[in-house]
């Protein structure tokens, strides 16, 4: 068990609910991931007044926590309004704060993100800010009161995996008391294992599972990768060495040779 935002969770894998071909495929993926937290969003209400309610009811039966996002917001004010609306609908003070600064690669706007964070924390939200892996931005968010930071591994939906592993590693080292969850850009289970081995507390995914050929199997693979990465981190990996070192003891080697280096040169 681990603690995030005042909740005790079993799983370190957060899963998105978008992009699945059908609700049934989504539910199967959620089940095989064993996730405790799913991300959700808000849209402008259309003519079908029942659509949103049925989606919500479907997820409520999964016994998962909701992490609503503010996707599509470009200013702090938009994000604050959306967060408050999400709090009312989903009955949670958790908010995955997204403020887009660039529409091409969906890069977060750090200035509006920080502004919105300060307002939302003063309003009692548990803010999960989606940001880049920039150390100073993360530090400012922590200073503003964030207990959780969600840096990207790469731009949303790319699936290319961590583009700046050094930056992610530095974030972990410099913010040892902050919950760090990698959000966005992962495509393969090995990517998830890689960031978990750095000591990240969790991983948030959507496209990597939903756009795979078999979302239920892929979410299971990510679950195992996240668990493996975490165990690897907790076990403490050996330090890398530049020179080879035999893993099999030399004492009693059947065909012992004592070849001098000089002999090899003859």
């Amino acid at each position, binding site marked *: 068990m681990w603690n995030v935002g005042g909740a005790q969770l079993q799983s370190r894998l957060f899963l*998105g*609910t*978008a*992009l*699945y071909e059908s609700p049934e495929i*989504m539910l199967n993926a959620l089940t095989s991931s064993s996730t405790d937290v799913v*991300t*959700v*969003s*808000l*849209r*402008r*209400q259309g003519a079908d*007044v029942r*659509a*949103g*309610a049925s*989606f*919500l009811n479907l997820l409520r039966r999964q016994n998962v926590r909701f992490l*609503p*996002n503010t*996707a599509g917001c470009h200013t702090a*004010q*938009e994000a604050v*309004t*959306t967060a*408050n*609306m*999400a709090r*009312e*609908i*989903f009955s949670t003070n958790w908010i995955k704060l997204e403020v887009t600064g660039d529409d091409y690669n969906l890069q977060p706007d750090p200035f509006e993100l920080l502004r919105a964070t300060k307002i939302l924390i003063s309003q009692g939200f548990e803010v999960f800010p989606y940001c880049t892996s920039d150390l100073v931005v993360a530090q400012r968010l922590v200073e503003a009161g964030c207990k959780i930071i969600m840096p990207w591994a790469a731009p*949303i939906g790319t699936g290319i995996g961590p583009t700046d592993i050094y930056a992610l590693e530095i974030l972990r080292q410099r913010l040892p008391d902050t919950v760090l969850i990698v959000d966005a850009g992962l495509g393969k289970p090995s990517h998830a294992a890689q960031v978990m081995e750095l000591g990240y507390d969790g991983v948030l995914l*959507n*496209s990597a599972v939903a756009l795979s050929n078999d979302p239920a199997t892929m979410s299971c693979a990510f679950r195992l990768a996240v668990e493996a990465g975490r165990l690897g981190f907790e076990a403490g990996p050996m330090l890398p060495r530049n020179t080879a070192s035999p893993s099999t003891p030399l004492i009693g080697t059947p065909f012992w040779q004592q070849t001098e280096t000089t002999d090899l040169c003859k």
Partner: protein
Amino acid sequence: MLLLINGEEKDLPISTLSELASMLGYVGKSFAIAVDGQHVPQSDWSECRLVQRQNVLILSPMSGG
């Protein structure tokens, strides 16, 4: 009253937000409303009096990443 609801102009015979929600069938817990960019909690809908040309945003749950 002329209002801009989710980006569409609508002329409706209402004066409060609760009347608007009721007329549009938006009842229950699956909707949230903002007026001129400010969220109005459901508990305040009946006291929220609308004026001409206000911008009303009605949001409902959807999938997200």
